[in-house]
């Protein structure tokens, strides 16, 4: 049995997404910039994909720029807003401490260039409020960039409220919606979103393709210079097969968004309830406003990578915010941001589900995970000290 519970890392492609891309490899393989028929067929497909994606997000097709993925879209959105701000002497940027590194590292680069970056506290459940954003906005704020939902712990931010605050104050608002797109209802106009990034492979589309929505009138700064593709804002021959496939996957995800959410969140809740029975374990992230597929726990006294290796041996694919999976000494910046101590953050496990997971799989995971935790605790000197009272339990 192979149980794939790492859908926040990437998803298996859907049949729809695969079928959508094949003709653009085999038959309509032209370059959309070419004048001839084969090229123009590709150009037509590109336009259709743009219309489909725009309809899913509630924007105009011309407001979509196709990119190589979520990271590129994040980079371009943030750099664009920063350049617009600089022209008006505004160099203050508001974000959160638990953004994806595509955002945090771009902000770090801007900080080195003289921008002032303010990272909002995300609190113990990993959320920010619109009030926090309102309080942080200054005269010289040029951008608020806050993720739609957190990739590790699944907390969903109050995006429409934050968007409304930004609109009222006249500050550009970007959201990294990589984990949300195809899973949560997004309407960029109704939710007052100026810029949004998404990535195809998080909703059964292909890897290496994503998009940036930028409200009409927001001038984008190029990250990739070259030809005049994407209205001159993103050079390079378009990844037609990937783009067409992404549009098909996004449409399919959005068409089934409610039924998928009902099914997946029921599986999620069963997992959370079952894992909560393990002593000295704690759920990470917002228990209510939570991505339908996200389960993230800390287990005291053990280390995350060893949990993953044992689960892998039992056919369960999961992930961890453990330092040992990343090659650095520090565990997940997300878990540290919500206040988990280093010792506890090392012992984290993320299971991320999709609509193809089953209740049988959840039952199997609920049988295996407590055994793995108990086994690792049995050989852990930290656990022994916790149990004997020499060390204080934190969870």
């Amino acid at each position, binding site marked *: 049995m192979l149980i794939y519970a790492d859908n926040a890392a990437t998803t298996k492609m859907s049949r729809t997404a695969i079928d959508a891309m094949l003709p653009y490899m085999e038959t309509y393989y032209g370059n959309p910039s070419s004048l001839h028929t084969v090229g123009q067929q590709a150009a037509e497909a590109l336009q259709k994909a743009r219309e489909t994606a725009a309809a899913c997000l509630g924007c105009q097709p011309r407001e979509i720029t196709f990119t190589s993925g979520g990271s590129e879209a994040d980079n371009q959105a943030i750099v664009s807003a920063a350049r617009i701000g600089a022209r008006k002497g505004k160099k203050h940027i508001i974000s959160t401490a638990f953004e994806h590194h595509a955002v945090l590292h771009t902000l770090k680069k801007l900080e080195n260039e003289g921008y002032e970056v303010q990272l909002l506290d995300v609190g113990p459940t990993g959320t920010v409020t619109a009030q926090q954003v309102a309080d942080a906005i200054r005269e010289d704020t040029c951008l608020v960039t806050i993720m739609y939902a957190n990739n590790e712990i699944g907390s969903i931010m109050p995006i429409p409220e934050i968007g409304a605050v930004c609109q009222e104050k006249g500050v550009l608002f970007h959201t990294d919606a990589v984990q949300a797109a195809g899973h949560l209802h997004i309407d960029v106009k109704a939710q007052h979103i100026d810029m949004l990034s998404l990535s195809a492979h998080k909703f059964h589309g292909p890897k290496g393709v994503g998009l940036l929505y930028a409200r009409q009138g927001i001038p984008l700064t190029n990250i990739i210079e070259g030809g005049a593709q994407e209205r001159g804002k993103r050079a390079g021959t378009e990844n037609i097969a990937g783009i067409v496939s992404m549009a098909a996957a996004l449409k399919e995800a959005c068409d089934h968004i409610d039924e998928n959410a009902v099914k997946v969140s029921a599986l999620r809740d069963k997992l959370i309830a079952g894992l909560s029975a393990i002593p000295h374990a704690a759920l990470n992230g917002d228990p209510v406003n939570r991505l339908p597929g996200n389960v993230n726990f800390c287990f005291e006294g053990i*280390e995350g990578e060893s949990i993953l*290796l044992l689960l892998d041996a039992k056919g369960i694919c999961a992930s961890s915010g453990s330092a*040992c999976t990343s090659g650095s000494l520090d565990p997940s910046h997300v878990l540290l941001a919500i206040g988990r101590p280093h010792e506890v953050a090392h012992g984290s496990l993320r299971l991320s589900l999709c609509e193809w997971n089953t209740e049988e799989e959840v039952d199997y995971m609920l049988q295996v995970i407590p055994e793995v935790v108990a086994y690792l605790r049995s*050989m*852990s000197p930290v656990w022994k000290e916790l149990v004997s009272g020499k060390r204080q339990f934190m969870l």
Partner: protein
Amino acid sequence: MALYTDMVMDHFMHPRNVGEIPNADGVGEVGNAKCGDIMKMYLKIKDNVIEDAKFETFGCGSAIASSSMATELIKGKTIDEALAVTNKQVVEALGGLPAYKLHCSVLAEESIKSAVKNYYDRNNIPYDKSKFPDCDDCEACRMV
């Protein structure tokens, strides 16, 4: 998983000598939970020979495998032979470790030394202090 060699996986999945030795003659602990690795080594020593070695480890796959291998390398050896075991030998015996996991092998070496030092201290046996690690400033933590 291709991250680790078969030998590392074998020692991780089926660790040798896990547990505590009651009334051990020497006990050493290195690492700290904040950094994500703690190794505790128990030694039974008779006539200068390590009759038994057991370990308990909080840490990743390579930390557990390194501890397991370290106990195998020192069982039946004299104290001097055990003290001569290097992290490099642990790595070689495991068929290699990824570069960013080498600190686990250093911890394994230091856990042996720490347990022997504890044995010396208990029995008032004189030794060269400079040859033993000080875990508050140990090499493993600096390597990461």
